[in-house]
Each structure stands twice: as C-alpha cells, then as structure tokens.
C-alpha cells in the first residue's frame, strides 16, 4: 500500500495535466477558429467561439483578450471592459492586452466625455 501511494499521486498529477492540456488545446482550437472567422468579418461567430474558449479554459488570457476585442467591435463596451480586465488579471504583463486595453479606454473615455444633463 505504502509503495502504491506515490504511484497514485503521480497518476493523479499526470491525469490532471492531461485534463488541463486538453482544456487548453480545446480552448485554443476555439480561439484560432474565432480569429479566422473574425478576419473574414464574421464577428458574431467569433464571439461565440471566444466565449466557448473562456468557458472551457477560464484561465486562458488570450481568449478573454479576443472576447474583449469582439465585444468592442459589437459596441458592447461594458462587457469589453470586463473581458479586458479579466485578461489583464490573468496576464498583467501581457503588452498586447495592455495596448488593446489602452486603445479601448481612449474610445470609452471619449464617448463618456463631459456631459451636463
């Protein structure tokens, strides 16, 4: 029994890794397909794919970044802000996400500029 324990632990770790790798590769496939359709102007389909990717693999920052870009393109600015923030929380040093977010904030701020009802 004693010598079986490390084997079981190792198996669980290995299996966990495989499950994680599967989730990441499934999510990656969704993300790649989303990029390909977005490049052809099919943004709704792209959004669906990136949403799926974030559900399959919630710590996948790229999926949230792309989702944010998709929401931005569709004019859903609040959702875009949330998605950018999620992406940056997962990868705070990612320069591409930061750049996207900065550009987004510029537009968002402009649309909310000085209004006196």
């Amino acid at each position, binding site marked *: 029994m004693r010598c079986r324990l490390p084997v079981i632990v190792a198996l669980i770790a290995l299996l966990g890794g495989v499950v994680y790798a599967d989730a990441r590769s499934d999510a*990656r496939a969704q*993300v*790649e*397909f*989303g*990029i*390909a*359709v*977005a*490049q*052809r*102007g*099919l943004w709704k*389909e792209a959004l669906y794919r990136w949403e799926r990717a974030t559900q399959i693999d919630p710590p996948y*920052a*790229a999926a949230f*970044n*792309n989702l944010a*870009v998709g929401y*931005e*393109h*569709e*004019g859903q*600015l609040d959702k875009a802000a949330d998605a950018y923030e999620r992406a940056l929380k997962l990868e705070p040093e*990612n320069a*591409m*996400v930061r*750049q*996207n977010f900065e*550009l*987004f904030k510029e*537009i968002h701020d*402009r*649309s909310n*500029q*000085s*209004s*006196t*009802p």
Partner: protein
Amino acid sequence: MTGRTSLLLLSAAVASTLAGCASFYEIPIETPIAAKLDVSAFQRVYIAGFLSGGTSDIDGNLETVRLLRSQLRTKSSLRVVDADVLPLIKDAGGTGPQGAQGLGAGPAAEARQAATGEIRNEKDLQLYEHIFGDAEYWKRVGEEHQGPLIVTGTILFTPHSQSGMVQREREVIDPLGRRRVEPVREYMERKGFILQEKIVFIDGRTGAQLHSEAWREERLYNQNDTTPALSSFFELMDEIIPRFLSTLSTQRVRGSRVLIK
C-alpha cells in the same frame, strides 16, 4: 445559415488550420459609439444660433452655425432647417424673468449693459444663459419650424498666451553622421486661442431642454507663428465636431486591435 456564410466558415476553418505559426494577428475594428441623445422623435434639426463672445476677429456664432449645419447635412439623417440665425443676445435681453426689459437693476441691468458691449468672458455669457431655460421662447421658435430638435448654446473663443518650459524634438547628427531625434526642453512664449463651447439641445415641440454638453479646447502656437484666428477656430472645432455628432447619431470609430492565440 446561408451558402456564403458556410463557405466563409469553411475557408476560415482551413485558414485556422494552416495559419498555425503566428501567435498574434492585428485586425481592423470599428467600434460603434451609441448616440447620447435619442432623436428618433425628430425629423428636423434647427441650428438656431449661439451666444458668442471672446475675440472680435471672427463671428463665432455664424461660423459655428454654418459648420454644424454642413456637418449635419452629410453625417446625420435629420433634415437641417435652413433658416435665419436667431439674434440670441438681443432676445435674451428681453425674455424671461431675468430679462433686461422687466427689471431695472441687478443682473438684468448688467445684461442690458453688456448687450451694448461685447461678451468677453464666461461671466458676461452667464448674464444671457437664462434664455436656454425659457421654454415658452423655444416653443415659439419650434412652432415656426414644425417642432424640430433645436441646437443652441454658447461659444467663447478667446486669445490666450502662455510661457513656460516646453518639450520639443530636435534633430541632431552624431559624429558618425547619423541623424537622430532627441527631446529638448526650452523656455517658450506661446500664444493661441481657447474655445469653450456649450451645446444645448432643446425639444422644439415643448421648448424643454433635453440635454447639454460642454467642451473646452485650446491651441498654442510659437510666438513667431502668425496663425489666423479663423484657422485656429477651425482646428479647435475639428476636435469638437466628432463629439457633437456622437451626441446625435451613432458614430463608428475605426482602429485596430491585436488578437492573440
């Protein structure tokens, strides 16, 4: 799903399989910015005129009316009413509870006095701003033009000068003959203009104020530049016009973003 969409999806699938190497893609996007004001109830828009002041080099009222009308003609679905510009300063002197005709002292008297002179600053403008709250006046104006959306407000275009440290870029050639640009800080006297604009949107059917927006822009030039006031005015209006248009209609802002794998 249409045949074209299926084809696009199929080609996208092939492309996503083939393009496995790059890890990021730059993509153009168009972000729609929803209009701040719902103008669906109106078919017409009347740029009625502005209380304007500041430099006497330009007529801020007429220039703004002309510019906004031409912008709306091309960038809005509303029909632009082509009518005379209202003499707002004169009208503000004779309407409402604070009107100069009704009272002989206080703010009204100041207004009457100012009406004979020039509007130089915000304080002078405030003497007339009560006109925007005069629903009866705007209702009458609206009735003359079939109840349009009325656009009015204030324009203050004033000369401005400023001195201080300014950072600019200077081209230098190093000992090896290579050109490079380096930042230099230097003391400069600069002059230019400030444009303060308040746009008021009024329902021409009821005379009620619907919305207002206020913006401030400034441009400073090198002391030696002789930029005419009118050029500077148009430069500053270039900054303001997209914001004005985005109040009335959905605007699409073009840009690019990076998609990541």
